[in-house]
């Protein structure tokens, strides 16, 4: 092992500096959108305190010995299960979802904690037995690890977090060497089931695509037919199952596909967010000068619609700056995931990469009206203690891995 005493070799400023910039931009945006608010006026100070606490934890995790994270993986995952169950029993309902556990004034979202647990346990499980990589049982277990919490999360219901769980699980399997055919095998029933929500035509077209895929893979006829039948059953069974849901649950599924089902609620927010960003222009209207933000056209703007504050007050330049910072972080993470000598480390970093990328895509997409409205915060910028702590803790874990990246444990 090459030992270097240069600090750059033990601490990646390429990951730390952009994060710090994003946190500062987030502080400005939270300040602008809440400081004059009658109810949320002290959110800026709360946000600042959360950042300071999170950064302390970040450096604490950085200095931990190299094996600590691997050892804690199982504990974090199973304790997160406990909290996910607990929240369904004693949780507070906020905006229609039972996702908060409160201790007096302090509240936290177990789903955020569970995201950290998921990444660690999957990396732990997949890196345990190298030889059994393509073993069907290993894959099935990995899927179980990722998808069982999804049931608890959907019960809250928190669609955004459920999507994050599914995407992280599948991408980590992919990173671990899953072949294309198995990927196809895992993904196709889900795609068919979702397609069934869009009606008969969509379902049939998707099934035809599945058939085409099966022909492409040129497996033997018996396997291909079995998979096709399985897919068809998934599609029809899901369609049938939806009919037995209660009307409000059906409506929730419908608004997942088309947010304009509720034009005065979610639809209104998209329109107003787009107007805010579009009206920002090249340089923006200036800090504390965005009329859309200051006149509070977007409810709860400081959480999921924080990017529209940046867009309105700091304009195209501000938006691009945020994008570049995210790009640097994502780039460095992917590079580290590739370079890390240890399989566990590589998988954890890839998991963190996927975590940030999924949140980024869904949140920015929602602000620009590209993706449907799914409540997910923008990492580093959105107001909200639990989600901020989760992403900074993950970045701390990555920094710890960076320190040991050249070691094989």
């Amino acid at each position, binding site marked *: 092992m090459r030992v270097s005493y240069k600090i750059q070799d033990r601490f990646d400023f390429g990951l730390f500096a952009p994060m710090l910039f994003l946190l500062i931009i987030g502080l400005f945006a939270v300040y602008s959108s809440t400081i*004059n*608010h*009658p*109810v949320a*006026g002290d959110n800026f100070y709360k946000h600042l305190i959360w950042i300071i606490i999170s950064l302390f934890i970040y450096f604490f995790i950085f200095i931990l010995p190299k094996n600590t994270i691997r050892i804690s993986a199982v504990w974090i995952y199973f304790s997160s299960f406990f909290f996910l169950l607990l929240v369904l029993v004693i949780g507070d309902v906020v905006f229609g979802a039972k996702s908060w556990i409160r201790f007096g004034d302090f509240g936290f979202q177990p789903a955020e904690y569970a995201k950290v647990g998921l990444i660690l346990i999957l990396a732990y499980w997949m890196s345990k037995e*190298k030889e059994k990589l393509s073993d069907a049982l290993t894959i099935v277990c990995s899927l179980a690890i990722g998808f069982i919490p999804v049931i608890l999360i959907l019960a809250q219901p928190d669609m955004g977090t459920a999507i994050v769980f599914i995407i992280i699980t599948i*991408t980590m399997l*992919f*990173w671990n*060497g899953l072949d294309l055919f198995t990927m196809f095998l895992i993904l196709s029933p889900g795609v068919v089931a979702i397609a069934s929500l869009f009606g008969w035509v969509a379902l049939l077209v998707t099934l035809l695509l599945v058939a085409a895929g099966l022909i492409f893979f040129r497996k033997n006829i018996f396997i291909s037919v079995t998979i096709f039948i399985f897919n068809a059953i998934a599609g029809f069974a899901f369609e049938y199952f939806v009919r037995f849901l209660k009307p409000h649950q059906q409506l929730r599924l419908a608004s997942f596909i088309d947010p304009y089902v509720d034009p005065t609620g979610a639809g209104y927010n998209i329109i107003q967010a*787009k*107007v*805010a*960003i*579009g*009206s*920002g*222009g*090249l340089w923006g209207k200036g800090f504390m000068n965005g*009329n*859309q933000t*200051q*006149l*509070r*056209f977007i409810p709860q703007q400081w959480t999921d619609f924080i990017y529209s504050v940046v*867009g309105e007050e700091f*304009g*195209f330049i501000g*938006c*691009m700056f945020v*994008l570049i910072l995210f*790009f640097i972080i*994502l780039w460095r993470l*992917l590079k580290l*995931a*590739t370079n*890390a*000598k240890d*399989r566990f480390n*590589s998988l954890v970093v890839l998991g963190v*990469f996927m975590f940030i*990328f999924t949140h980024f*895509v869904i949140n*920015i*997409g929602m602000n*620009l009206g*590209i993706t449907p409205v799914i409540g997910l915060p923008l990492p580093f910028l959105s107001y909200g203690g639990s989600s901020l702590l989760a992403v900074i803790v993950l970045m701390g874990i990555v920094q710890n891995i960076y320190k040991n990246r050249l070691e094989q444990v």
Partner: protein
Amino acid sequence: MNDDFLKLLVRKRIILIFVFLFFALVIYELVKIQLIENVAYLAKSEENSIKKMEQQAPRGVFYDRNFKLLVTNKPSFVAILNPTKYDSKFDSLIEKKLQLDSGYIQKVFSQSTTSRFLPVKIKKNVGYDFIAWYEENSDSLPGVSYEIEIQRDYLTDISCAHAFGYTNEITSKQLQEKKDIYSYGDIVGSTGLEKYYENELKGQKGISYILVDSKQRVIGKYDDGKQDIAPVKGNDLVLTIDYNLQKVAEESFKGYRGGIVAIEPKTGEILVFSSSPTFDLRQFTGGIPPQKWKELSNDPKKPLFNRVSSAKYSPGSAYKMVLALAGLEENIITTSWTIGCGGGFLFGGNFFRCTHAHGSVNVTRAIEASCNTFFYQLMLKIGLENWAKYSRIMGFGSKTGIDFPEDNSGLIPDSNYYNKVYGKGKWKKGYLVSLGIGQGECSVTILQLAQYASLLANFGETYQPHLVKGIIENETQNYIPLKFEKVKTPISKKTFDIVRDGMFKVVHGSGTARSVFIPNLTIAGKTGTVQNPHGANHAVFIAFAPYDDPQIAVAVLVENVGYGATYAAPIAKKIIEEYLVKKNNIEELVETTIIN
């Protein structure tokens, strides 16, 4: 991951393709809306922002029992300054016109908790003279405007402040609890009937969609107001209060502290609900000025305190009928049981005094002359548990169930209570003696005393006391009478006959309240003079009339003045006279007119 390094690079590239694709899409979208279509979006944001505005609904109004309008609504002007357009060089002029202190406007601006883009309500209840002056000069006063707010209006000369209650802007705590119904700045009932009947009174807020520009200037109505929802007025309340009677009560209580309740025994309808001293609700319209609030809450006479159903007092001798009922109904005594009163009673080494030496007295005579010696001994004879049982039967020690937010239970001690306070076996029978004359640790409200008078009047049957008879639904204008629960005691008529006879003699025999006698009217009553640690005795009087067919039951308590017969009884007399004599006179007048 050396083992499949090449493969990993491929996988990395696949992921990178997704990353690049998404960044390209976002940048394309940003360029499109922020750079190319910026002007259109800017125009939308500057000129075409739809703002949802809530419109206050008028609250339901109050009528008295004879449909006399008591409380209604009035429009009021609120002066508004819009900080983005307003020029501070007008400060001194506006402050002078609105009679505000110098520097007030800048103080309000700097303390404003809302955005500096939003208009500030600078003064409520602005006079017509300011509006007229503003209308003449509005062109030269940028950023100054006014709006109309709906406020409570009190039409009559009665106060009735504790019963009516006041409204105020919703507190942040209330807002947290009922986020889905109310919003910031809404007016809600804070006390009294305004609070209890809030859901009936509040109506439904209207919604109007207006187009505003970035400076919050109103450009016009959105979609010509087709999407607007008009506010709906709340439902009206028809009270049980009798305006004339309430007025007499308030006038005769001027200068005194205390309270009076009058009830129609057959229905439980409250005719008079008056706590004194009172305050003027007109001072509270459109929000309570902090200075006024401070002044009222620091007043040593406590005008804001509701003495009728919140304050607890020892009932004094007015309570003696409870013992009489218990003794007779439990067959512990009969009318032939007599004691000799030599001016007091020696028990456990203490001498409990009586007012006079009454000689030989039975239960009727004891009520008539208010003989303490009789009731000291009766208390020991019936015991604490029976005393507590009959206290509860007569409505003491528990809430009356009145349709009003304040309904104090009072305190009726029993052996559990004494065990808890003094320890088991550590309290003496001597403690009980004073309970026999309504002193000591028992306490009641004036409302409970009035209900007690009702039960005595109507042989143990009445309805839960209430202040609202019915509701006039705004939508249909139908009158919907409210139903209240029946209150019934298990005590026999025979027992009531004996006790009521005693109360009759209090006024018509040689009793303590002969001064209440009104020609052609039969009144039964009982005086009380309550010792208390706050100074002179409280004067108490409960009564009902007419004796054979009771139409009114009254309870009066005057704080720290002296004898019940001297101070409380005359007020009760005035109420009964006003209610029965004038009412009968009118009826007689009607009858004679018909005969003639």
